[in-house]
Each structure stands twice: as C-alpha cells, then as structure tokens.
C-alpha cells in the first residue's frame, strides 16, 4: 500500500504476532472488528509494524471488498510482511494472522454448536436461541445504521441515505437478485450521482 516502512522480524516476533492473534480470537465477541482497537495498540503503537495509514486502509479495503470483513486481518498480516521486506514474508503474515484469529474461535464455536445441536430440545437451549432473536434484529438494524452513517456521515450526503433506503425496500419487498442492486449502487457512485 502506501508509505511503506522497513522493519525486521525475527522468528520470535512472528510467534509473538501469532500468539497475539490467538488471544484476540477468543476476545472477538461480536466479530473480529470489535478487537481492532487492541490490534491498533499492538501493531501500530507498541511494535510499529504497521503505519497508521496501512492500518486504516486494511480495514477500509476489507469493508469495501466482497467477502467476510474478517479479511482485514489478512491484509494487516500482508502489510506487516511487506514491511518486513518480501512477498514471501507477506504470505507468511497472512497465514499467521488468519490462522491466529480463526483457530481458537472456530474450534470453540464448532464444539459449542455441536453440543447445542445435540441438546436442541432442552428448554434452556431453546430459550437461549429464541430469546436472542430480538437482539439479533436490533444488531442488524444497528449495523445497517452504522454502515450507512460511515458512507454518508454528514447531511449533504442525502442521496446516499436515499439509495440505502430504496435498496432496503426493494430487497425487503421483492426477490430481485442482490447483485442488481449492488451494481446499481456502483454505477450511481461511479457516475458521481451519489
């Protein structure tokens, strides 16, 4: 990306990075994005392995690109590796960061989900799953709101809000394929209309 820095990473630094992401994995309730402030402290402030711009770009790019948002972790690993001086290191960075952030949480979730599935008739398990339903809906609406606000933070961006509202209604009420709406949004944006 931009304004690269040059760092040297010894094998214990890689281990340190891996260990840090293993730890963050178990702390990432509500998604990896909730641990970004801790990643920032570790990567940018404490070790200086990433610049502020690289850190921000990693998140913004992963938000904009298709795929799960957790891929911003891969980009951070990639950039740390590039700063260390080679594409090989960059791939190692991706591997270390992604394995670290995913391994503990996926194993834990898999075991809990299997347990929940085996015991799905238990009153407590049913109560948990169904009792969370309104919270899930609240989180969806909040995510939508936060995403729309970050796209058009101030009032002058009302066309963006209008587009968000229109696509909400279309997706809610019709069976139109999502890609058509995304394509329309991209087109309107590229033409400078929103």
């Amino acid at each position: 990306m931009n304004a690269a820095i040059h760092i040297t990473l010894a094998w214990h630094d890689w281990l340190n990075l891996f260990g840090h992401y293993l730890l963050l994995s178990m702390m990432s309730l509500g998604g990896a994005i909730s641990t970004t402030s801790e990643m920032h402290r570790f990567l940018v402030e404490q070790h200086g392995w990433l610049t502020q711009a690289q850190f921000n770009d990693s998140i913004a790019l992963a938000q904009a690109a298709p795929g799960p948002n957790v891929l911003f972790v891969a980009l951070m690993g990639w950039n740390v590796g590039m700063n260390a001086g080679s594409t090989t290191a960059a791939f190692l960075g991706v591997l270390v960061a992604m394995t670290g952030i995913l391994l503990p949480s996926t194993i834990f979730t898999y075991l809990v989900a299997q347990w929940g599935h085996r015991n799905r008739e238990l009153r407590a398990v049913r109560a948990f799953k169904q009792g969370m339903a309104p919270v899930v809906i609240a989180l969806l609406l909040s995510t939508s709101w936060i995403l729309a606000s970050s796209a058009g933070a101030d009032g002058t961006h009302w066309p963006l809000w209008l587009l968000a509202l229109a696509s909400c209604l279309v997706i809610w009420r019709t069976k139109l394929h999502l890609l058509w709406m995304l394509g329309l949004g991209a087109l309107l944006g590229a033409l400078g209309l929103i």
Partner: protein
Amino acid sequence: MTSPPVFDRPRPASLSDLFFSFTFLALQGFGGVLAVVQRELVERKRWLSHEEFIEDWAVAQIMPGPNVVNLSMMIGARYFGLRGALTALAGILAVPLVLILLLAVLHARFAANPQVAGALRGMAAVSAGLIAAVGLKMWVALKRNPVPLPWCLAIIAAGFVLVGLVKFPLGWVLLILGSLGCVLAYRGLR
C-alpha cells in the same frame, strides 16, 4: 449429530455444492456477508427457515470469532459434520482472500480514482439498506417466538439505540438484553 436428521426441504447436494454456494455468496457480500447468507440460503436455496437462520445467527454472534465465519461453519456442520464445517469455512474464505490480496496490490493505483471511490460508496449504501432489509424480514420469526411481542419491540428499540446510536460496547448489550430475552423466552416456553 448421532441420529440422521430428517430433511423435508432442499439441502446442499454435495461438499462441492456447499463450497461453491458459500464462495458465491461471499463474493456478493460487499460490506458484510450476512445479508447475502439470508437471501441465498433462506430465500433462494431454502436450506434454512427464517427461524433456523435467526437461531443459528444468535449462536454465531454470541460465540467469539467472526460471526459469518461461525455461521457458515455451523451450517456446513449441520449437513456434513466436520467435513461440512471445514468446506463451508474454505468456501467463504478462500476465493475472497485471494481477491482481497489482489485488491491490496492494486489499491494504491485505484484508491485515488474518483469513479472507483464513488462506486465503493454506492455499494456501501446498498449494503446498508440490504442489512436493514434482513432485519425487517426476520420479523416473521418473531411471531412464533415465546418472547411476548411488546417485549421483542422494546428489546429491538433498546438494542438499536445502544449499539447503533450510543455505540455502547457490544458485549454488555449482548449480556444485558440477551439475558432479558432468554429469561423471557424461558418463561414463555413450557
């Protein structure tokens, strides 16, 4: 999963079907994949009902880790056990990972381009609308929920204000409102 579940509706035909379905929906997910999961797997493929989707997502959300990754793993595991979990995981991550690394390499060249920036902004706005639409659709799942409807509405409103507007830490919101919902559901279930 000791006893084979009874499937009275469509399910993934094979591991490769699972892999490509998840890859395909991951590639549609700009700004998050969750809305696409609901659209593709509940409405189009009908692998999950609204209720199952919302229940699985509640679990995926409350567990540590990226919630879409957790969710795809759980759905894969439901049909093919551990192999399914790993396949769904690979499906949702592999191709998008390659793509995003390519984008990172090209990023410096394209970031300054106003058309590209505009297109990304437009897609983000559509994604925002799309996620809200999923929330609205989940409404049908509440009708059969043991939590009384006025309580559901109160929890949704409180959750939206706390997370969306006040930016209250998510963990606390999940703990407080989640416990409230679970207690109400427990009392409603007999």
